[in-house]
C-alpha cells in the first residue's frame, strides 16, 4: 500500500484532534467504508500508542531504580513471613528462632556493635532520580550531564568534583543529596555531613532522606549519640525511612 500524503495528513490531524467537525465526519465515514484507509489509520494509532508506551516504560524504570534503595515496608515483610510460615512449621520454627535469638544476643553481649559494619549493611546510595541519563543524542554534554552520568556510573570521585562545581553556581537539593552520598562513599564523612545539613537547613525537600544519611554518617564515624538523635527524628517521620530508622536504633542499642 502506498498511502498518499493527503491521507496521512488527515490521519495525523485526526489523531491530534485538529480536524474540523466536517472533516472528522468525512474521515470516520471513510474509516468504515475503506479498509485500506482503515488499516493506515490503525497503523498510525498503534505507532502513537507505542511511542507513549516507550516513554512510560522509561519512567517506570526510573521508579524501579528509586524503589531499589527505599526500605522495605514493614507490612510487606510481615506478609512475606506470613506466606512462608505453614502452621505445622510454626512450633519448630519458634524453637529455632528462640535459639537463634539466644545465640545472637550472646554474641552481641560478648562483642560490641560494629558501627562501620552496621553502616555498610544499611547504606544504599541514593539513586540519580534528578536527571536520569537517557538515550538521546540531543542531550548536551556539559559539567551537569557529566556529573550525573559519573554518579550513575559509580565514578563518585568525578561526580563529587563536578557536583561541587555545580553548587558553586547554584545550590540545589538534588545535587546536595547526591554529593553527600558520593562523599559518604569516598569516606569524606564530615564533608558529607555539611552537604546534608545544608540541605536540611536551606530546603524543604528531601529532609527525611538527608537526615537518614546524616544519621548514617555519624554511625560510620562511631558517633553513636549523634546518630541516635538524628535517627530518632527520622523514626517519627511519615516516610518509609521511619521503620528502617526504628530497626537501626534497636540494633545500635
Amino acid at each position, binding site marked *: 500500500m502506498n498511502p498518499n500524503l493527503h491521507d496521512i495528513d488527515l490521519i495525523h490531524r485526526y489523531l491530534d484532534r485538529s480536524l474540523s467537525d466536517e472533516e472528522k465526519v468525512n474521515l470516520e465515514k471513510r474509516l468504515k467504508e475503506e479498509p485500506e484507509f482503515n488499516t493506515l489509520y490503525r*497503523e498510525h494509532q498503534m505507532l502513537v500508542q507505542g*511511542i*507513549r508506551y*516507550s516513554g512510560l516504560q522509561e519512567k517506570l524504570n526510573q521508579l524501579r531504580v528509586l524503589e531499589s534503595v527505599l526500605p522495605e515496608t514493614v507490612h510487606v515483610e510481615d506478609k512475606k513471613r506470613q506466606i512462608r510460615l505453614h502452621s505445622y512449621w510454626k512450633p519448630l520454627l519458634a524453637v529455632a528462632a528462640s535459639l537463634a535469638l539466644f545465640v545472637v544476643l550472646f554474641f552481641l553481649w560478648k562483642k560490641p556493635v560494629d558501627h562501620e559494619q552496621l553502616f555498610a549493611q544499611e547504606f544504599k546510595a541514593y539513586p540519580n532520580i534528578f536527571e536520569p541519563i537517557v538515550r538521546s543524542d*540531543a542531550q548536551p554534554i556539559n559539567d551537569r550531564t557529566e556529573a550525573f552520568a559519573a554518579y550513575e556510573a559509580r565514578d563518585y570521585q568525578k561526580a563529587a568534583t563536578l557536583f561541587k562545581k555545580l553548587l558553586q553556581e547554584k545550590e540545589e537539593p538534588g545535587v546536595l543529596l547526591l554529593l553527600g552520598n558520593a562523599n559518604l562513599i569516598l569516606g569524606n564523612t564530615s564533608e558529607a555531613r555539611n552537604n546534608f545539613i545544608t540541605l536540611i537547613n536551606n530546603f524543604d525537600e528531601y529532609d527525611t532522606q538527608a537526615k537518614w544519611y546524616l544519621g548514617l554518617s555519624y554511625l560510620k564515624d562511631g558517633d553513636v549519640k549523634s546518630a541516635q538523635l538524628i535517627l530518632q527524628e527520622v523514626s517519627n517521620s*511519615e516516610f518509609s525511612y521511619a521503620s528502617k530508622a526504628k530497626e537501626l536504633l534497636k540494633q545500635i542499642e
Partner: protein
Amino acid sequence: MSDPEIINLIRNEDSRGLSMVYEKFRNEFIHWIIKTYGTDPDDAREFYQASIVILYDNTMAGKLDSLQSSLKTYLFGIGKNLALQQLRLNHRKQKTGAEFYIKNYVLDNQEDKMKEEVNLEIISQSFSTLGEPCHELLSLYYYKKKSMEEISATLGYKNPETAKNQKYKCMERLRKIVFGTLHPSTYSTEPFTEE
C-alpha cells in the same frame, strides 16, 4: 509542599516532583491495597508503580491542572481502578507486572488487547532504534505532549510548521521500520468503530 506545587514540579519535568509523590504515599498505598484487595505484597508494589506512572502521564496531559480532590485521593483512585481491572480480568493468580497495567492504560478501551500488547513491545523496540532528531521529536510530541511551538524552540527549528513537517517524516520513518517487519496478520485490521 502543597499539591499544586508538586503538580507544577512534575509538569515542569523536575524529577523531584514525582519522586516526592512516590516516597510520600508509598507505604500507605501498599498497605491499603494489600488490606483492601488481598493483593500479594509484590503485586501491590507493581500496582503502585503503575499508578504513579499513570499519574505522571495524566499530569503531563494537563488533567490535574484544575484538580478538585487531593493528589492522594487522585492517586488512590487510579490504584482502585487498576485493582478492580485486575479482579475483572481474573488474573489474581497470575503474576502481572506494572507493564501490564500501563499497556492497558495506553490501549484504553480498545478491544483485542492481547494482539495490541505484542505490538506495543515491537513498536517500543523499533522506536528506540529511531535516530535523532526523530526519537526526541516524536517523544516530545506524543509522550510529553509538548506543542509544536515548544518543540520548535527546544530542537531549534525555524518555526512550528517546519517541526510539524519533520514530525510527518519521522512518523513515516517509524511506520516503515515497524510495519516493514511486522506481518499484517499480527495486528488487527478490524473495521474502526467510533465509541
